[in-house]
């Protein structure tokens, strides 16, 4: 299920899987996929299960099937490091190719995969630093500008209710800008009460749309712990 959120006057739909859909443009955005994070850690001695790319691709396949977008935009850090594409398994590579078929695919470069220009040649799609369409601008690192849809921060919110503490990934948004949740299977979260978010939203209050199993739950950031 999705929640209707407006950014810079543009009606958007936030999906509880963590993807963002722009109906008018038939555009689907996801952020911080961090493909091959598992194998990246393995190279450094932590042998995490090598199934994260497949798991992320499966989730991505789900939202793409649901929305059937004309354009898919990935908001940066799509790979955990610049050698990620070389470690993709044959079957994951094929799955990715399948998802790209029949639609535009735009990889926005992040800080982890800064060499996206080169990488895009290996894995299909086109690369960009930012993407501006109408009032909206898609980029990786948020600057707080009006109309911005960004990633990088992996927003997560915590509320306390009935003596229990609940943490979920979330969309952080106010009327003018949004920071998307991280989509990757192994991605962690940064609390929206961290000052990095204050740098984006200033002293204005903003909403945390927490991802539930079947829908999103909206809380004002001030109410979160």
């Amino acid at each position, binding site marked *: 299920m999705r929640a209707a959120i407006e950014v810079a006057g543009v009606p958007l739909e936030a999906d509880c899987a963590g993807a963002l859909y722009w109906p008018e443009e038939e555009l689907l955005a996801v952020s911080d996929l961090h493909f091959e994070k598992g194998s990246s*850690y393995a190279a450094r*001695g932590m042998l995490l299960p090598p199934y994260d790319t497949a798991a992320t691709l499966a989730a991505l396949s789900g939202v793409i099937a649901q929305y059937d977008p004309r354009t898919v935009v990935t908001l940066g850090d799509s790979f955990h490091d610049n050698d990620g594409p070389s470690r993709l398994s044959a079957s994951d590579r094929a799955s990715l190719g399948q998802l790209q078929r029949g639609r535009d695919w735009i990889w926005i470069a992040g800080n982890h995969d800064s060499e996206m220009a080169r990488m895009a040649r290996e894995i299909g799609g086109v690369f960009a630093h930012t993407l501006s369409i109408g009032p909206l601008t898609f980029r990786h690192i948020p600057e707080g500008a009006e109309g911005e849809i960004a990633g990088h921060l992996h927003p997560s919110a915590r*509320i306390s209710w009935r003596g*229990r503490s609940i943490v979920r990934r979330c969309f952080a948004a106010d009327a003018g800008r949004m920071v998307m949740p991280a989509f990757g299977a192994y991605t962690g979260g940064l609390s929206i009460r961290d000052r990095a978010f204050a740098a984006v939203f200033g002293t204005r209050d903003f909403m945390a749309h927490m991802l539930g199993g079947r829908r999103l739950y909206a809380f004002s950031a001030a109410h979160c*712990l």
Partner: protein
Amino acid sequence: MPPADSLTTVPLLPDVFQRWFAQRGWTPRPHQLALLEHAKARRSTLLIAPTGAGKTLAGFLPTLVELDEQRHAGAPRKTRGQGTDRAMPPRSSLVSTGRNVARSGGLHTLYISPLKALAVDIARNLETPVAEMGLPIRIETRTGDTPASKRQRQRRDPPDILLTTPEQLALLLATADGPFLFSSLRRVVLDELHSLVTSKRGDLLALDLARLFRLAPQLTTVGLSATVADPAELCRYLVPQPPAGAAQADLVVAEGGAAPVVTMLDTAEHLPWAGHSARHALTEIYALIKLHKTTLVFVNTRMQAEMIFQELWRINDDGLAIALHHGSLDVEQRRKVENAMAAGRLRAVVCTSSLDLGVDWGDVDLVINVGAPKGSSRLLQRIGRANHRMDEPSRGVLVPANRFEVLECTAAIAAVAQNAQDTPPLRTGALDVLAQHVLGCACGEPFLAEELYAEVRQAAPYTSLTRADFDSVVDFVATGGYALKVYERFAKIKQTKDGRWRITHPLVAQRYRMNVGTIVEADMLKVRLVRSRASKHGYAGPIARGGKLLGQVEEYFIETLTPGDTFVFSGEILRYEAIVEDEVYVSRAADEDPKIPSYEGGKFPLSTYLADRVRHLLAEPSAWRVLPDQVREWLDIQKWRSLIPAAGDLLVETFPRADKSYLVCYPFEGRLAHQTLGMLLTRRLERARLRPLGFVANEYALAVWGLGDPALAIRRGELSLAELFDQDMLGDDLEAWLAESALMKRTFRNCAIIAGLIERRYPGEEKSRRQMTISTDLVYDVLRKHQPDHVLLRAAREDAATGLLDIRRLGAMLSRIRGRIIHKELDRVSPLAVPVLLEIGAEMVYGEASDVLLAEAEADLVKEAMG
């Protein structure tokens, strides 16, 4: 006591020892001599002895005697810091490398204790007789606190006797010095063995013992233990097990002291229905403290300890020296309390199980146990600490905190009178511990799979390990154990041409050594004192630099607090300011009323044995004579309004209350198993469209409430209690729940850390848990979906069977009550249900479908906003 001129002492004890005993006015005890005899006969032995029976001396006497005899026989000896006799090759040529190199100069005796403080204290105590007898024996300790330079020197130039912890032993075996240090080993003394074997630490120690037996075939072991239910199990633990059948060490049981005198406080105050604070009894507890020299006041949880400590000081008109001791306090502070106790300067110490193990502390003459003791063995061991003169009875007083606990305490007193033990059976060795051990072995020296498998199976907890499981573990250590074989080039260990497994890079060994150990701390945050700052926004950014460390507190607790909330810790009232990395910053808030923490309950649920006794006590109205009036009255009314269940039945009551319908059942299987049952029952009730809203569980009961009426559904034939409580809930329902269960994820995380999948320490940096950029919850989710039979998931399931989820116990209960469910339909709450219902608000709500909570919270805020 045997007469001093007994003929049996002559051949065993050399002169210098006999003289030393005589000088002290002591006679060697029978069990001490028995251990000497067994040692001479080269037999491993288990000694079961109460505190104060000279256990330590019993353990070390064989070693001291042997070393003394060796000296007389002209064998090379270790002098302090210098080289050895001419008969030995000069020290400089004693380079420790490789296998099959027999060097003299290794250790003679190893002493292992669960606590590093214990190892240090015992060493100190041992120095006295050694010095007094003039024995040239080198005794040293090795713990996490031993400076690196000393530890390095110990590997090159080890003492005769080394006192250390299981973790240090694992570390030593993971170096190339293992063969040098241990091939000369004659004896290993294992202290507090009963407490070591109940946990994963015991598994790791067993594996290391098996390795020691291989390195030193002439080795014998001595186990020192309190009384246990099945000594034969400990006897097996002490010796290598053959491929078929079992081998055992010999058993020596010291003559017991006088039987303990345990009573229950018959309070004049009103007995609460629920709660665990025992506030009502504080004046009476204080009065008891005044009557005795030194009293230990045991409680079940840290929070209770804090609370009782606060309350006692409030009424401490006589200014008695009362101290606090629990595991979350700063180490310095704990040591201060321990030293003050030993010096006899304290009148009372309020403590948790943190003081269960330890050196003889002399003049404790009363043990008060607040709240129900969770097991009879645990209680016997605690009471045993009071009054360590063998011929005088130890004294204990039980203080039940509520009416139900009166039943538990009554059962416990009866158990003590029969000296009934309820220690748990020996564990099956954990696979995550084995993984850590396999890597450690590879770090020590390359191994052949067949040989290591045979060695591992000699460890008692691992006798039934299959070759397939062993190979899975080796595969896990090498490349993670994944069906998808993509990590060959990142392997930690590899098989070389000779078939041996060896580590692929020295960094692997370095990282192993930084992370060894099986104790995984619950998610704790360090508590640091700062100056108060009125923080409106509560940003977790830089804050004025913190001051003193007060100890640690559970992360789950802090997570429920808002900046500004206050709580009790370390004897004071603190205000929560902020969390910065893995520390929680607090300031002093002396004037305010502290927030009452939600009660997580004790660490240990009621033991199966005691639970059974309580059920029988309850089922037997004629036995209620011994109970206090208030409790008897409660049960009489229950009998009249509802019914008293027979010991083997499961009573299920249903009744309406305030617009909701309640279903309360009384399994008596402990809080943990009940919580799991609650999770599963609510799923089933949801499917039966009874719209459950929440549940609450305590040690003996489980209450579920909801919008649908179960009584009506039962009358209509739409709901069958037999089906509801069927064992098949442990199938699909359990699986589905385990996917989301926070407790299960925590269990998995512990396994991942122990097995070495997640390393918390890297060379050059300390990655605290909060800084770890990968959450094991995410790994759990992905692994469950893609490789559900992965060795770590299996290890976690095994843990869940008995740990936080207590699934095995739940299964046994469901089996026991088949066909024996008694339903009582009531029109109002029953007396027996009152205590568990009073826990509502302090416990969890419906499942962990926290989406339900999110929805509620959101709706509440909306309502608030809309006015």
